[in-house]
């Protein structure tokens, strides 16, 4: 099993305390689940563990940190433990062992009251099946979190009204959830989460139940909201394209364990193992890889009169500049020349996609 690729330098620069820090997190379901972690049983494969103890290790030894305002995506196929993982992060599912620090505070140490407090103020969640209350109007659904918190009626309607506009549901305040399409219902779910003004938003496969076109719409919506409100987001999905689109970084899970953690271009450009490689095989690389991944070292005979591009420019966006220039393009990072990109390198990426 490859070491989880975590290092401080991967956290975007310019931040202090991480929004969320997870260390050695385990969740084992089954009889006497606590005897598994820290024993040789923990090294067994999922099937062997099931056969020997009747326990299922849904989350195995996961560690990662999320920086404030980062979008962190957890990706895996169904049964990989990603939904359990996200529930462990809000203790909707009680972790078996490990630590979860929310802005430095130990989540597992919180008593019921403190936990409720955290849920009311610090984080909010958007669910795959929406979890709306069918007997309440859209406005009351959005205001639900505030109502639980004890906010006065006028105040919560005022706030819910603002959120209604923010998530694009203006004019639907008095509708009932089942009068809305799936995409609109999820906007209500999103609005309910945003209304409590949380610092961390959890998304549990929020768009899996939606049509592909609406899903794209909603992804754009999340990107826009992230841009506007700048929340930290933990996003669970089984859809690689969604992960690549939204994620600042991606954690890939398989059978409960982390296979790889990295930026989208790292996952596509340097898959940690065959599993991830298989996964990303169909991804149009030119859309994800930055030119850093296709550049070659500078040679002495390189003409240096070509245009300059940043190392983080995506290949697709660099095509025109590279192909229209007669000289190789210089790749620059932090003001230093780090490599060269020529027509051939670009074409190799694009042609590979055609095959």
């Amino acid at each position, binding site marked *: 099993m490859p070491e989880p690729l975590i290092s401080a330098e991967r956290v975007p620069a310019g931040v202090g305390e991480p929004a969320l820090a997870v260390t050695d997190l385990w969740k084992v379901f089954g009889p006497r689940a606590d005897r598994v972690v820290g024993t040789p049983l923990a090294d067994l494969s999922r099937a062997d563990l099931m056969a020997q103890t009747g326990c299922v290790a849904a989350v195995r030894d996961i560690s990662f940190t999320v920086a404030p305002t980062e979008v962190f995506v957890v990706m895996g196929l169904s049964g990989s433990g990603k939904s359990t993982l996200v529930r462990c992060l809000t203790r*909707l599912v009680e972790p078996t062992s490990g630590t979860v620090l929310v802005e430095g505070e130990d989540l597992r140490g919180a008593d019921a009251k403190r*936990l409720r407090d955290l*849920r009311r103020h610090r984080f909010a969640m958007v*669910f795959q099946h929406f*979890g709306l209350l069918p*007997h309440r109007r859209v406005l009351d659904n959005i205001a639900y979190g505030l109502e639980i918190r004890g906010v006065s009626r006028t105040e919560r309607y005022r706030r819910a009204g603002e959120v209604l506009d923010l998530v694009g549901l203006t004019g639907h305040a008095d509708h*009932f959830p089942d009068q809305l399409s799936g995409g609109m219902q999820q906007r209500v779910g999103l609005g*309910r989460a945003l209304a409590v003004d949380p610092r961390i938003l959890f998304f549990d496969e929020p768009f899996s139940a939606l049509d592909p076109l609406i899903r794209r719409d909603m992804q754009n919506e999340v990107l826009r909201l992230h841009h506007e409100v700048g929340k930290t987001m933990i996003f669970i999905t089984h859809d690689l394209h969604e992960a690549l689109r939204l994620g600042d970084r991606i954690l890939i899970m398989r059978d409960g364990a982390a296979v790889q953690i990295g930026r989208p271009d790292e996952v596509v450009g340097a898959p940690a193992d065959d599993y991830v490689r298989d996964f990303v095989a169909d991804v149009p690389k030119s859309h994800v890889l930055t030119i850093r991944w296709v550049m070659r070292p500078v040679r002495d005979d390189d003409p240096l009169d070509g245009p300059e591009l940043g190392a983080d420019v995506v290949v697709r966006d660099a095509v025109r500049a590279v192909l229209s220039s007669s000289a190789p393009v210089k790749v620059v990072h932090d003001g230093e020349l780090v490599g060269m990109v020529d027509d051939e390198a670009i074409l190799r990426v694009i042609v590979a996609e055609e095959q």
Partner: protein
Amino acid sequence: MTALAGTAASVRRRAGGLTRGWLVGGVVAVWVLLWIPLRGRDTLALSTSELSPLHERLNDLRDAINNTRGSSPVFSAFFDVIRESVDALTVFLQSLISQPAYGRPVPLIGWLGVVAVATFGAYAVGNLRVAALTAAGFTSFGLLGFWQQSMDTLALTLAAVLICLAIGIPLGIWAGLSDRLNRVLTPVLDFMQTMPTFVYLAPLTLFFLIGPASGVIATLIYAMPPVIRITAHGIRSVAPSSVEAGTSLGATRWQLLRSVRVPLAKRTIVLGINQTVMCALSMVTIAALIDAPGLGQVVLRALQTLDVGTAFSAGLAIVIMAIVLDRVTTAARDRVETQYRMGPRARGRRRVVLAGLGVLTAVALYLSYTYVWAAFFPGPERGGAVGGEVADGVTRASDWVQLNLGAVTDAVRNAISYGLLNPLQSLIADSPWYLVSAVVLAIAWIVAGPRIVPTAAVCLGLLVGSGLWQEAMVTLAATLVATVIVMALGVVVGVWMGRSDRADGLIRPTLDAAQVMPAFVYLVPFLGLFGASRFTAIVAAVVFAAPVAIKLVADGIRGVPATVVEAAVSSGSSAWQVITKVQLPLARQSVTLAANQGLIYVLSMVVVGGLVGAGALGYLVVAGFSQSDLYGKGLAAGLAVVLLGVLLDRTTQAAARRLDAGAAHRGLRKGKDS
């Protein structure tokens, strides 16, 4: 793929069923061969007035309990407290609407006030349509000449329902939240519900005396389980995603209950209330046997004097009350949905109507409190405005039928009696008890497996001990005949309904309506058709039990996956082949459940049939209420009914489980093979 596996499994199951069928057939053949020489020996017969030592001891026990009633602390601190508080509530409700009270010659609220309040209430919880139905229905009680009796029935039903809901809804919510409580409650509720309805009337009178309080307490036992069960089910089936969303926002347990669980389960809870109300009405009428006042008494007395006309018009009043209560509570359930969707304008309109009706109701209340014409329902003393004519008309019609269609009804009756009932009764009741016991044990083993044998043996042993073996066997024969007819109806009509949406749409409402009727009422028309006989009781039992069986079979047929049926049709099966080779085998569990429920329903009705000449256990139970000497024997007869019920219920349930387990096992093996 699934379809193929399904059909393959069903083919194997058929093969298993076949060998079991042969085994049962063999047992029956041996039985008949032994019956010929042994017939009439050791049948443990006991004539009606004879008492076994057990019956005498039960009589003594009753006397002993009656004698200690005044002195024992168990009574003064427990039974009497319950009886007195239930009695207080009942008497209060009666003095409001049915009985003279507070020094007045009339109840506090006269007929006009009651009609107004009921109509207002129906509109408040339902809609204008059911309000109109309520007004018409309540007025008809007076027109039929049963105003006071109807109000007694209503008061007792209300008292029972109020207590049921006050205890049942909180308990149901708790059971919905706590797995442990649910596990404890389920068997208790099962027991309360499988006991034939009026078997526990006699023991109750021991502790709570006869009269309204006992009637209400018996009703509580019968009517409480539905609301507990259905409320718990409603709370449990609230979408987990909604609960999780609430939790993730930091809701407390109480907030979750109040703002998520209860509102989302409300519709189901109201359905539970509906069921409890219907059960309560049914039981309040039966409680006439222990002197509970009301319409049941009228029907009971009329049945005993074979006065079909009066039984019919009082029965009609019960039916009308059942329909009104059912429609109003159903409308209340539907309103749960529409209520929160109402726009502000509709809400305002509704408020205006409510206020208007409220004022009218207040006026009517005042009038009915003050003026005699609004207190006493106007009309002749006996029969009311139309009741007498209804009764006379029905009596004439019944006489006419018995005179002119006697040939037809006799032919039907004789065909079933001589073709099915007599031979079976003779085989079961005239065999020596040890032979019947051996046969029952053998058949139970074959269809339900060896684990059922001890239970069955205990039941049989206790039946022998009850001193009522032969009566029990006669009742068993009648029950089996009725169940066979019920199952024939159930399979034929159920398959039809399961396969045709139109048939379903046509028949289901009728069945639903038939199910809300109190058991009593079924006896009346058949008494008119067939006179007082065993056969009347059997037909009434069939009509009583058939709706349940038909609906279960229909739902089972509907539940067969469409893909399986499609696969069978696409491989060229005829409709008959689809039914016999795919739908019925796959719906087998439902069919077995239908047989189980059919048996229980039939058994409880066969006992009620004791009122119209069914004889055997039913007669003894009824006689035990009225004849002091037969009290112990009636009690023993009630126990015998319970024992028969347990025997039949356990065996059919074990058979169903075995079918299930067999199918699952084979499914598993099949999976491993491929």
